[in-house]
């Protein structure tokens, strides 16, 4: 701070406290609400002294919202997206940065055209694709009138339909969200900052590309990987639109989507205490990840190239 002005300093801290309270208020209030019995939570205004019903509400929410299954689903989806994205993009960036091949520029352009185009803008066709992965093959099949050919060959009418659906499955939840170039782009940027001499030296020592990748590139990328784990885990856990479309089986619901069953409808009893208890459980894993890995996360978010 430049001047020593106690008044300004005090004002700064007061405003800062106010800011933190305003930002934290929805959570503090929800935590209090989650400890209250239904009679207290529907009182106007709600009392601000925590009650003793916290575990009861958590239990009710856990059973009513089927949280056990949903949390496992969310965890598998978030971990799958995180792992898939990091592996796919690290290998891709390695190929683009450290090899010289004829289709390199083409590969670079095809991958980076997808940068920042979220799944939200292409939901219907992506849904159709996930509903039947072999759809494109089927179109080619139909285009070539191969059904006729097969029928002629077999001597009787045969209808060939190619189908391999991903609806209500983990790969269906994970794979379409892995198809994004953001991580590849970040890894490419990072690899470009690594001194060229390292690669030269490795080559001189006779290291194969994969040895270079394992022994040099991977250890150097650890901070970036840690940051991406946080960012992608939060991204995966918080997905909404895609899981909403692709899951119809209640056993495949993700935790965030499942919460909708806990929100009291207009003519229900206002079980907001239970709804908020469930909400707190579901938001806890990503919040913990962010808080525990804050240092890497902030670095990775703000300054991903170093």
């Amino acid at each position, binding site marked *: *701070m*430049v001047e020593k002005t106690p008044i300004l300093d005090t004002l*700064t801290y007061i405003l*800062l406290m106010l*800011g*933190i309270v305003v*930002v934290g208020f*929805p959570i503090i*209030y*929800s935590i209090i609400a989650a400890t209250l019995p239904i009679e207290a939570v*529907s009182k*106007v*205004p709600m009392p601000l002294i925590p009650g003793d019903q916290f575990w009861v509400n958590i239990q009710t929410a856990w059973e009513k919202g089927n949280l056990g299954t949903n949390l496992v689903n969310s965890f598998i989806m978030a971990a799958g997206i995180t792992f898939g994205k990091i592996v796919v993009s690290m*290998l*891709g960036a390695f*190929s683009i*940065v*450290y*090899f*010289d*091949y004829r289709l390199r520029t083409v*590969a670079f352009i095809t991958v980076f055209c997808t940068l*920042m*185009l*979220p799944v*939200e*803008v*292409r*939901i*219907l*066709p992506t849904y159709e*694709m*996930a509903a039947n*992965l072999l759809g494109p093959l089927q179109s080619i099949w139909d285009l070539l009138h191969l059904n006729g050919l097969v029928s002629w060959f077999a001597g009787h009418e045969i209808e060939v339909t190619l189908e391999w659906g991903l609806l209500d499955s983990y790969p269906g939840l994970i794979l*379409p969200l892995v*198809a994004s*170039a953001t991580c590849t782009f970040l890894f490419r940027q990072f*690899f*470009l900052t690594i001194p*060229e001499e390292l*690669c030269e030296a490795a*080559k001189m020592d006779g290291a194969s*590309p*994969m040895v270079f990748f394992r022994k040099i590139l991977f250890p150097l990328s650890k901070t970036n990987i840690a940051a991406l784990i946080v960012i992608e885990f939060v991204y995966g856990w*918080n997905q*909404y*639109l895609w899981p909403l*479309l692709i899951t119809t089986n209640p056993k495949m619901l993700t935790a965030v*989507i499942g*919460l909708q069953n806990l*929100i009291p409808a*207009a003519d229900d009893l*206002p079980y*907001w205490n239970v709804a908020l208890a469930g*909400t707190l459980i*579901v938001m806890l894993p990503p919040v913990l990840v*962010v808080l525990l890995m*804050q240092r890497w996360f*902030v670095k990775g978010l703000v*300054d991903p190239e170093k």
Partner: protein
Amino acid sequence: MIKRSFFTSKLLPYFLILPQFLVTATFFYWPALQGLVQSVMRSDPFGQHSTFIWLDNFIALFTDPLYLKSIGTTLFFSASVAAVSISIGLFIATMANRALKARALVRTMLVWPYAVAPAISGILWLFLLHPSYGVVAIAIKRWLGLDWNPVLDGKDALFMVIMASSWKQISYNFVFFIAGMQAIPGSLIEAAAMDGASPFRRFWKITLPLLSPTLFFVTVMNIIYSFFETFGVIHMMTQGGPGGATNILVYKVYQDGFIGLDLGSSAAQSIVLMTLIIVITVLQFKYVERKVQYAG
């Protein structure tokens, strides 16, 4: 800046890029192509027959008062979300940057809403703004003397989704602003202070101009956020209602495509959204390049 030192291998590079290529082709290029085709076709809801109709879907879209209204709602919504979350984030970051000793603690206390899903933010604010039980709703009614009913009143509903969407985004903006402010050399601020510039003047004349690349980046990210990721907020809180008052573009794609099964219109809407985001991305890349130039 391209590396000059390369490994030479015939097949390995193709093998390494293959997974990326496969997921991108399957879940990006093919669907995008399908979307393009569908946007110039009229199909029956069961996908049995389709006829080529040139740009009729797009013409229908831009003459549809509901779609035009949705564009207006989206623009107002994202401008408000960006304005509210950026100004609060910037304000708190400025304060936190002054409070040197407590900066790490303050960051910890402000960073976590980043991890809250938009849909969950929707639930929290649905409770706070609930017309009968919500504490903020009661404050609005008692202190401001306003009638508050987001279930029936479109303006109230829009205000509600703006609150929920902005709240979650404050911490994202805060993290970027505080990092940007820490990168400003202290000597600049000290020199200005020595010349007698007041804290407010220093903020306007030094901090804010030097922060402008961050500010630009954050604005773009906020717009993208409010266009697409707020789907969860809308779906949890209002489902686009009442009377389409909170029906932003991305929600309308979902409603027309999945609920209404109007494939042609939904595909055309997706194409419009895609074009829009491509324009934003290109603009951003151009600007980022310029920023690199003045840094070097």
